[in-house]
């Protein structure tokens, strides 16, 4: 496997794997995740509940799809959209002076500050950006990243 292919595979596996883990930790305890969403004070409680039940599974399936290279373009689209949405929510929390845990990995890891979560999101967006660039160039799409 050549270096660009290796780099693309690494981007895909890291991004997919992280979303898979994040989804599983949230799906394990949707009530806790609903509370984490509520901390952002962006939606009514029913909206928080709906998201807490649905979002973890989107993360799990999108993460799985990217990791396993099945429906990988759709998965990358969803993961990119989620990264943007999460970043907007984090920035809005900073603007409103909320001192909350990001809730990004459920309660698997210790409470994470917003600044650190934003930095992590930026890193993940770079990985997603790399995959998008190679995909849009067409010649080296994620689909063929692992080709012999």
């Amino acid at each position, binding site marked *: 496997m050549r270096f660009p292919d290796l780099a693309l595979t690494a981007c895909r596996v890291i991004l997919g794997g992280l979303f898979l883990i994040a989804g599983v930790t949230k799906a394990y305890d*949707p009530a806790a995740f609903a509370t984490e969403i509520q901390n952002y004070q962006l939606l009514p409680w029913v909206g928080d509940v709906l998201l807490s039940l649905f979002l973890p599974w989107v993360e799990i399936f999108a993460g799985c799809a990217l990791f396993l290279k099945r429906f990988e373009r759709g*998965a990358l689209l969803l993961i990119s959209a989620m990264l943007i949405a999460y970043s907007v929510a984090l920035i809005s929390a900073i603007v409103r002076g909320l001192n909350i845990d990001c809730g990004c990995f459920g309660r698997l890891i210790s409470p994470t500050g917003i600044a650190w979560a934003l930095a992590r999101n930026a890193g993940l967006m770079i990985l997603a950006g790399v995959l998008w660039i190679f995909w849009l160039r067409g010649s080296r799409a994620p689909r063929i990243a692992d080709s012999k």
Partner: protein
Amino acid sequence: MTAVRQALWILLIALLPAFFASAFHPKRPAWSEDALKPGEERLGTVQSWGDSVLWVDARSRKEFDTEHIPNAVLLNLEEWDQLFPAFLDRWQPNQKVVVYCSSLACHMSEEVADRLKRNSVEPVYVLKGGWEAWKSKQ
């Protein structure tokens, strides 16, 4: 278009387990905010447990110093390392711990309760409505 179509498929597939989680997940959130969340208890229930309960105030030191539930121990995330040993001095194994913060809108009590559980302190409950609920009953 392929990406959008694939994304829609993933969303559609995710709906199925989400639906089952909403109906059968043991830790599913309550649809009504008035309902108790897992680990949450109302003031009346806690009072029915008697004086054996150890109250934990998860608010800031300033708020605690102003007023707090009698015999409550201060334990917040900001000063966790300094305050946790003092909590352990007060807590007896198996003694019920009830954590409260300011009101319904605050969630610090849930975070403190969660961290207590991760430090093997059980059973831990969160007071629904927090300090405001207590104050309104005095």
